[in-house]
């Protein structure tokens, strides 16, 4: 399968805020939010990017959409390097790749009517006005919302969270993109409406043949919508494989702890202690070698000396661990 989105050695470094001591010493600490990520997403493929807060998953999503510029590495979209796009090419890319925001209550301008919210991307893309109605109608149908006539004049605060999140999704789909990045698309919603949005995401995946990156800390959600999953830890991808396999037989010690930590809505579940030590280390000074080593129960001397590469281990799986 030809990749639609392809990132090579992607890195993003941010200058961290400094303490007074660091200012006096003239130190300029840097956070390696994303530190060498390789990934590819095929046309029509839904990939989950899983990790805890601060692991760099949101930054990765923003890099792929060209919302922040990488410090190193390259991103290709449909063969074109994003860094070399001219103005016209960039405008075209903006139409083909869209972001679905996390918090539907913040993502919509409170002073725009729903009709205007949905038309805005079309206006920005300079599409002829005659097409607007039809495109909006199609997008609403995809997210299973009734036709606009019933609430087009309403303002965002008059709609419920579930409806708003569907509007946010419809706004991203109104330009018929080929790629979307959805950053925690349901984390702000109540459980009873969350399932509805997840089902819409699945339908959109199946009917539009959309390539999608779902960023989430919730493995159960990723499992529900994504065929493939990438697990991130402190700025790097530690595991990549079919979601089913990552859930059933996680290979990286971090993924193992992560899978075990996910609570299930049943009484008969394991209460065993998690195979993980301590807390997430300071992202400004990650450990040498394997970044997970000081929390890994299996770590050995080699893990401190040598950084494990994300290597192919067969059956479409990749792992960054010396002992797999």
């Amino acid at each position, binding site marked *: 399968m030809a990749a639609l989105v392809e990132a090579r050695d992607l890195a993003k470094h941010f200058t961290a805020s400094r303490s007074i001591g660091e200012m006096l010493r003239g130190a300029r600490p840097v956070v390696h939010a994303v530190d060498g990520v390789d990934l590819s997403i095929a046309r029509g493929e839904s990939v989950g990017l899983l990790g805890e807060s601060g692991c760099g998953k949101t930054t990765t999503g923003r890099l792929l959409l060209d919302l922040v510029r990488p410090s190193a590495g390259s991103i290709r979209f449909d063969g074109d390097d994003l860094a070399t796009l001219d103005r016209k090419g960039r405008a075209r890319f903006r139409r083909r790749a869209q972001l679905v925001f996390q918090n539907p209550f913040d993502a919509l301008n409170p002073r725009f009517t729903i009709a205007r919210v949905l038309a805005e991307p079309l206006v920005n893309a300079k599409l002829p006005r005659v097409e607007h109605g039809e495109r909006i109608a199609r997008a609403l149908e995809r997210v299973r919302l009734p036709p606009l006539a019933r609430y087009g004049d309403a303002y965002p605060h008059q709609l419920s969270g579930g409806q708003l999140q569907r509007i946010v999704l419809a706004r991203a789909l109104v330009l018929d993109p080929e790629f979307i990045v959805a950053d925690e698309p349901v984390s702000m919603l109540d459980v009873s409406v969350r*399932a509805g949005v997840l089902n819409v995401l699945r339908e959109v995946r199946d009917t539009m043949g959309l390539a999608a990156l779902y960023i989430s800390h919730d493995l*159960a959600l990723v499992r529900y919508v994504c065929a493939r999953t990438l697990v991130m830890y402190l700025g790097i991808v530690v595991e990549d494989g079919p979601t089913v396999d990552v859930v059933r037989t996680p290979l990286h010690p971090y993924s193992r702890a992560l899978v075990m*930590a996910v609570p299930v809505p049943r009484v008969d*579940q394991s209460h065993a202690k998690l195979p993980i030590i301590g807390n997430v280390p300071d992202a400004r000074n990650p450990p040498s070698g394997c970044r997970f080593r000081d929390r890994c129960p299996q770590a050995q001397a080699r893990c401190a000396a040598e950084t494990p590469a994300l290597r192919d281990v067969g059956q479409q799986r990749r792992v960054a661990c010396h002992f797999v």
Partner: protein
Amino acid sequence: MAMILEVENLHVHYRTNRGNVRAVDGASFSVPRGSVVGLVGESGCGKTTAARAITGVMTRNASIPEGAIRFDGTDLTTLDARSYAALRWRDIAFVPQSAMNSLDPVYRVGKQLEEVLVVRGGSTRRAARQRAAELFELVGLDAHRLRDYPHQFSGGMRQRAAIALALALTPKLVIADEPVTALDVIVQRQVLDVVRELQQRLNLSMILVTHDISVVAYVCDQVVVMYAGQVVETGPTGSVLERPAHPYTMGLTNAFPDLERSSGQLTSIDGDPPDLLTPPPGCRFAARCPFALARCHVEAPPRTAIEAGHHASCWRIDEAASLRDQAREVATWQRS
């Protein structure tokens, strides 16, 4: 079973300029001594209001027009502010959702623990210092960190510190409001493990307010499911989660993705909860319920026993088994 807490027909109203919001409207449940009770429901169902009413810390516009909260024999609703204050922390402790709400950012964490022990617990400074170290150890924190300020702690550590603070005076009842919601999965699990272990070791009685059924399944012995200000189902966790008898509980359990059981489609409950300014007559859930009969819209269903300790309020409770099967189908919940 001896009950540490019995909430009976509790009503909590909020005065607003639009009128009286009946946030809790006739809720009854109890907490057996030494067990963890999960209070579940969605935003606005009244679970936090009910929990706050028990601690006696409510906003100015809140009132309890009706109902009783019996704690260890005393009806808390009859207490004056002073006797309530004496009870709080010593007998009933509270762990808020965001630990930053219980920790003062300008004092060292250890200092705050000692303060509680000295001022409320009447211990000496020296004894307090030692006890603070013990408490830190109890929740799995290094005693060195007592000298740190809250901002130097990670989210999970803060939540542990908040738990230590709540346990400082060995209360009889701990009420935790979404104690792990803001945490990452791994940290969440670690904090839940601390809660479980402490609960078993100290034989604590607890109320855990949460929207997350998985959290309930992991730590709670009993569940109380709330909807629109009322309790719709209560019972032992296993019984309620495996054989839910109220359609709302059925919908809720089927809306949760389960990591180990794959594929099956999730169901969502269309519509919104009713406006609590003017709650509808009959069953509050009727408007969203796929199984509602004409009667459900008019007459409120009584609380009915299903099996030992398991109750639900639904007119079609005798058909629960067949409704459960139908509730698993997405089509059941879809409305034209």
